[in-house]
C-alpha cells in the first residue's frame, strides 16, 4: 500500500562517494538529471543502492503488514459484496508486496534477508498499520484515506529514477486507485445510511485523519533524506508538498460525505489556493516510527507467528523440490 521515509537516523549518504569513480558518478548524475531510468545492471552509487533497498523493502513490508488491519474484517464484512471486495483488496496487497520484493531483489538483496530484517524489527513499515481497525467503517476509511495518501505518494514514484521501482509503481497505482474508489464508495454508503452508520463513519474519520497525514513522513525541515533523494530523483516531491496536495483533495471529499475533518485549524487559504491545517502530533509519529504504535506489537507478533508456524511447510516444499530434482537427475 505505501511507504515513506521512516529511518529514524539519517544515513550518511555522501560518505562513500569520495572513493567512487568520479567519471561514472558524473555520468550517473547526468542520466538521472535527464530523467533517464537507471536499470539493475547499470552502475549506481552505493548510497543510491542502499537508499533504494531501504525504501523499496519498507514499501514491500508495508504491503504485507498492511494485510493485517484489513484482514481483521474479512470474516465480519457486512455483505457478500463487501466481503469479496475486501478479499480482492487484501489479495492485491500480497501481490504488491511480491512486485516490490522483486524490484528490491534487482538491487542485490534477497527476499529472505528482507523478511528477516522485518521480523527482527530492523526494517520499518508504514506507521499507519500500527493503528487498530475497530469498526467496519475503518475498512472504507482506510480505502479512502490511506490508499488515497498512498496514491498521492506513489503517482510521482511512477517517474522515480530506478526503472524496476517505477514500473512496479505503475502497476500498483492502477490497482490502488480502484480500491480507493471502492473504499470511498463504502464510506458513502455509511454516510448516507442510518444515524448509527453515519456516526461510525465520522468516528473512523476522527481516528484515521491524523495518522493518514503522517503517512507522508516528517515535516520537510526534519526530513534528512529528502534533499539527496530528490537530487537522485528517487523522490519527486517533498513530504510537505504531498501532504498539502492530499489535504486539498480530501477535504472536499469529506464535505461531499457530510463528514467533519477533526481539525479546528483547517481553513481555506485563498492566497495560496489551498487549505491551511493544524500540525500533526509529531511526538506520536516518532513514537510510532520507534515501534510504539498502538498495535505495533500485535502486528509484529502476527507476522512472526505466520513465519514460525509456516516453517515446516516451507521446509516440506524445499525437501519435496529437492527430491524431485534428484529424481530427474537420476532418470
Amino acid at each position, binding site marked *: 500500500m505505501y511507504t515513506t521515509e521512516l529511518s529514524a537516523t539519517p544515513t550518511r549518504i555522501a560518505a562513500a562517494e569520495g572513493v567512487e569513480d568520479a567519471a561514472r558518478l558524473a555520468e550517473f548524475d547526468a542520466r538521472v538529471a535527464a530523467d533517464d531510468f537507471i536499470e539493475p545492471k547499470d552502475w549506481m552509487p552505493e548510497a543510491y543502492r542502499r537508499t533504494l533497498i531501504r525504501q523499496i523493502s519498507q514499501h514491500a513490508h508495508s504491503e*504485507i503488514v498492511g494485510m493485517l488491519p484489513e484482514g481483521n474484517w474479512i*470474516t*465480519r464484512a457486512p455483505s457478500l459484496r463487501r466481503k469479496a471486495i475486501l478479499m480482492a483488496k487484501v489479495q492485491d496487497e500480497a501481490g504488491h508486496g511480491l512486485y516490490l520484493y522483486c524490484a528490491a531483489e534487482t538491487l542485490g538483496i534477497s527476499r529472505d534477508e528482507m523478511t528477516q530484517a522485518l521480523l527482527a524489527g530492523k526494517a520499518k513499515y508504514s506507521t499507519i498499520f500500527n493503528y487498530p481497525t475497530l469498526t467496519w467503517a475503518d475498512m472504507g476509511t482506510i480505502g479512502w484515506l490511506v490508499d488515497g495518501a498512498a496514491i498521492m505518494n506513489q503517482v510521482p514514484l511512477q517517474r522515480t529514477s530506478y526503472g524496476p521501482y517505477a514500473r512496479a509503481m505503475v502497476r500498483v497505482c492502477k490497482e490502488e486507485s480502484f480500491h480507493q474508489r471502492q473504499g470511498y464508495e463504502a464510506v458513502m454508503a455509511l454516510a448516507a445510511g442510518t444515524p448509527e452508520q453515519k456516526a461510525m463513519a465520522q468516528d473512523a474519520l476522527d481516528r484515521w485523519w491524523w495518522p493518514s497525514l503522517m503517512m507522508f513522513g516528517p515535516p520537510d525541515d526534519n526530513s534528512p533524506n529528502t534533499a539527496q533523494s530528490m537530487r537522485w530523483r528517487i523522490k519527486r516531491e517533498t513530504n510537505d508538498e504531498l501532504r498539502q496536495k492530499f489535504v486539498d483533495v480530501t477535504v472536499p471529499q469529506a464535505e461531499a460525505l457530510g463528514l467533519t475533518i477533526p481539525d479546528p485549524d483547517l481553513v481555506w487559504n485563498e492566497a495560496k489556493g489551498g487549505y491551511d491545517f493544524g500540525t500533526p502530533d509529531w511526538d506520536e509519529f516518532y513514537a510510532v516510527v520507534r515501534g510504539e504504535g498502538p498495535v505495533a506489537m500485535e502486528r509484529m507478533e502476527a507476522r512472526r507467528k505466520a513465519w514460525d508456524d509456516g516453517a*515446516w511447510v516451507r521446509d516440506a516444499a524445499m525437501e519435496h523440490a529437492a527430491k524431485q530434482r534428484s529424481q530427474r537427475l537420476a532418470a
Partner: protein
Amino acid sequence: MADALAAARFAQSLRLGDDALILGQRLGEWAGHAPTLEVDLALTNIGLDLIGQAQHFLGYAGELEGKGQDADGLAFRRDVYDFRNCLLVEQPNGDFARTIARQYLFSAWQLPLMQGLAASADRRIADVAEKAVKEIAYHVRFSGEWIVRLGDGTAESKRRMEAALAWCWRFVDELFESDPAEAMLVEAGEAVDRAALRPAWDAAVDAVLAEAGLARPTIGRGVTGGRAGRHSEHLGHILSEMQFLPRAYPDAVW
C-alpha cells in the same frame, strides 16, 4: 409436484451456496497468516472464488424461495439449523495441512459436481456451474499439489498431512449423500446424482495420495448431518462472527 420441484431447486441452490460461503469464510481467516506470501495470495484467491459462487447460488436460492430474501438475507439472517452446508467445510482451519486436506477433499468433489451441473437443464444453475468449473480446476490443482508436497516432503510434514486427512475423512461420506428431492431433480435433468460421483472421486484422490506416498485413512462410520441443518459446534461461531453487523444494525444497508 410443481411445488415439490420448486422446493428441491431451492434446496439445491442453498446447499451449493452454503458450501461455498462457509468454506470461503474459513479461507478468509487465513489472510495475512499463511506460511508464504504466495500461499497467502492463493488461499485468499480461492476464498474469493468461493464467495463469488456463494453470491450466485444464494441469490438464485432467494429468488426460488420467493420470500424477498437476497443472497445477503440468506447469508446473514439464517441461524445454524437453516444452513445446509456439509460438515467438512465448517471444520476449523487447524494447521496448514488440515486446511489443505479439507480443500482438496472438497474441491475434488466439487469439480465433477459442477462439471455435471454445467449441463443442468436449469440454465441458471448451469451458467454458475460453468464459470465455477474453471475456478475449481485451479483449486484442485493447488490443493492436490500441496498434498503431494507435504506428503512427500519432510517426516514432520508427512505426519501432519496424515493426521489432517484422518481428521477430515470422517466428513467425506456426507458429500455423496443424496435425498429424494435431489433424485427428483436428477430425473428432471437439473441435478447431479451425488452418490454417483464417488467412484471417480475415489480414483482421483487415490492417485494423489499415491503420488504423495500417503495411505488412505481408514475410519468407521462417517459423521453426517449438515445437509439437514445438524451441524458441528463450529458453525455457530462462524455465524456469530460473520453475521454480527447485519444482526446488530438490522436497518442498515452497507
